[in-house]
């Protein structure tokens, strides 16, 4: 169980959601890679990443001299679990998957 307040505050900012979107598309990016395709200063990205890391939404792994950033789904799973029971959750997951597949088909 993590600090829900920190998670909600971290998610309340559009730039931070954009960073999570970017990691969701390409997990394991360095700060340089994240900066290269986002319209944000290096300092701003760095500051937002620190807030996401403090909320456990991003996990940083060191590989040699590089720090790579990974999206951590666990805090979001915890939040979902707070209001969605375990049994419903499996159904919700199945419905979310159905929605994703239908939307993918309609795009093709």
């Amino acid at each position, binding site marked *: 169980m*993590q600090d829900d307040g920190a998670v909600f505050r971290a998610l309340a900012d559009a730039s931070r959601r954009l960073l999570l979107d970017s990691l969701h598309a390409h*997990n394991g990016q360095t700060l340089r890679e994240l900066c290269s395709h986002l319209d944000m200063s290096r300092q701003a990205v760095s500051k937002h990443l620190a807030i996401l890391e403090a909320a456990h939404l991003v996990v940083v792994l060191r590989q040699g001299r590089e720090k*790579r950033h990974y999206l951590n789904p*666990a805090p979001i799973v*915890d939040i979902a*679990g707070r209001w969605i029971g375990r*049994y419903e959750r*499996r159904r919700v*997951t199945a419905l979310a998957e159905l929605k994703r597949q239908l939307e993918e088909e309609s795009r093709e």
Partner: protein
Amino acid sequence: MSEPAFVYQSDIATTPERLWAALTSGELTRQYWFGRRIESDWAVGSPVLFYDGDTDIVTDTGTVLECDRPRRLVYSFRPQVDVHGEPFTGDFTRVAFGLEPLAADRVRLRLVHDQLAGPDDVGGWEQGWTPILANLQVFLEGPAPTAPAG
């Protein structure tokens, strides 16, 4: 280039020994891993076998790569057959479980699944791991493991 990997980190109210047992005992894995038994003697170099919950057929095999009880467990695995039922010829992927004791009987579990074929695989593994790890947390923190959906 980004290193494709799926990462999941969660703080669980348990002890490293209980979490270790939950990851390495087939009798326990079947209670949160959708019926699957994960079996090995967990010596480095030993095989790891995944048994299907319904049929008890071995679906995936791999090798123990690191075992530092109760702190770190790393093994490789890959399916026996592909989606068409043909023998699977792709590469093994690698999963590492890190267990870090925190204060007050909490353990930080960090799963890193890497050596994936490509970035597109991360989403698939996310779909697979997330319910298993959420179930694991409920299994360890109680009150009761998730019953099979009726």
